[in-house]
């Protein structure tokens, strides 16, 4: 594939969003849509600039990123560890899987009032909610990845005298990795959805709080800015996950 084709391939995904932004800007400028109902993209950009100058945007961005990252790492780690335990140990599976499956079926957003009661409206409840949201996709995919390993490869490993640790690091984990990474990508989507809700319901900082606060003053610029920020966060985190996948699973291509 030549350089020109690669460039075109990289540009194509951005054509539609850019096109939509141009149409939107034109629609507002031509008064097809009123400014009060839907501000133009340039107005949103100006609002973003103002918020950057006051430092409010950075402050709220960083707190949202902190909650998302810590929650994802916490929930993802627990989901991964549980998935590995239940996937590799029959005793653990019998002890824990049933309970995990029961808990998985509780819509995690319904736990908000409970978490607020137990943990208050501070960072702990938000991070915990994000962690719970991320835990189950990672758990399910890790468990599935590990239990779906080709038994012939395991037999080969055992016949070559591999220890349990080597069986895990050389065969089980690499084999399960594609499935685990799918779980991580899914968990990243859940992470943002959960964060939006957590920050909208009970928060005094973060992007969700900014949107909520803007709503009270009918500040459409800021509301839309927050939505765009969430979309960009989601896209960037998915890109990171995709690149990680491409790097770790180079052998597949």
């Amino acid at each position, binding site marked *: 594939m030549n350089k020109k084709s690669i460039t075109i391939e990289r540009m194509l995904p951005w054509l539609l969003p850019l096109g939509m932004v141009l149409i939107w800007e034109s629609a507002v400028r031509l008064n097809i849509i009123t400014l009060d109902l839907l501000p133009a993209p340039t107005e949103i950009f100006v609002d973003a600039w103002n918020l950057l100058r006051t430092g409010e945007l950075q402050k709220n961005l960083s707190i949202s990123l902190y909650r998302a990252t810590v929650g994802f790492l916490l929930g993802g780690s627990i989901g991964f560890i549980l998935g590995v335990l239940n996937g590799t140990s029959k005793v653990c599976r019998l002890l824990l899987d049933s309970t995990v499956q029961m808990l998985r079926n509780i819509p995690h957003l319904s736990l908000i009032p409970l978490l607020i009661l137990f943990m208050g409206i501070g960072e702990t409840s938000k991070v915990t909610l994000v962690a719970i949201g991320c835990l189950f996709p990672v758990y399910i995919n890790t468990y599935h990845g590990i239990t779906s390993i080709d038994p012939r*490869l395991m*037999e080969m490993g*055992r016949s070559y005298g591999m220890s349990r640790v080597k069986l895990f690091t050389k065969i089980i984990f690499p084999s399960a*990795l594609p499935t685990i990474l799918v779980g991580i990508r899914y968990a990243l989507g859940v992470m943002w959805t959960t964060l939006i809700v957590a920050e909208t319901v009970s928060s005094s900082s973060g992007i969700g709080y900014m949107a909520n606060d803007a709503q009270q003053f009918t500040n459409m610029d800021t509301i839309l800015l927050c939505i765009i920020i969430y979309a960009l966060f989601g896209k960037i985190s998915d890109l990171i996950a995709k690149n990680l996948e491409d790097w770790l699973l180079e*052998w597949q291509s």
Partner: protein
Amino acid sequence: MTEQLLGIKNVGKHYADHVVLQNVNLSIVKSEFVSLVGMSGGGKSTLLRMIAGLEKPTAGKITQDSQEVTNLNPKVKMMFQDDRLLPWMDILHNVTLGENNDSAIQRALFLLKQVGLEKYISAYPKQISGGQKQRVALARALMPQPEILLLDEPLGALDALTRMKMQDLILQIWKNTGIAMVLVTHDINEAVRMSQKIFVVKDATVVQEYHNEFQGQMDEESKKGQDNLSNQITDEIMQE
């Protein structure tokens, strides 16, 4: 008399009511090349797995160097019908099974050269052919310098030409290393071409043992001898 390497005495294997093997008796001496032939489901692969220590006999005992095989047998390595290469490792690391120390890498490079794959060390299994994958599997089996190499129909999935080339390669390696080899195959001609002794497995036991003076020979006279032996073995298997 050449020293006995592997002794199989009154070995049996059953699963619930199903008898896979019973009263199997055979012995293999150092550096010997033997084959097990018979109908599908006759227990040949099960016998190989018991020699490897992957399964335990329900009767009798298997000894190697006078020591009973009760668990995984470290002096034996097995080549399966499918290559069982790890898709996420390149060819070199498939042979070393992920080890990166100098001695493992050097030995793997040596073995890959023996099997004619020295140019493919950075390739992944996906990038090479079925025959090449089996050659990698062969190199991997030779890595720990086993006393016995068990070959469970490793050439079954290959086309005729590749199969012949692999037969030549295995024979060459056998001659160079002196490792005893036990080959399970459905192809009686293959067994006759490659082995010094052929055991016929039938009715869950070893019913006949044939000594093959024509092993590995390609002249006309030897080929006739091989054909005669193949016919004898086929008649033995097909006999009611």
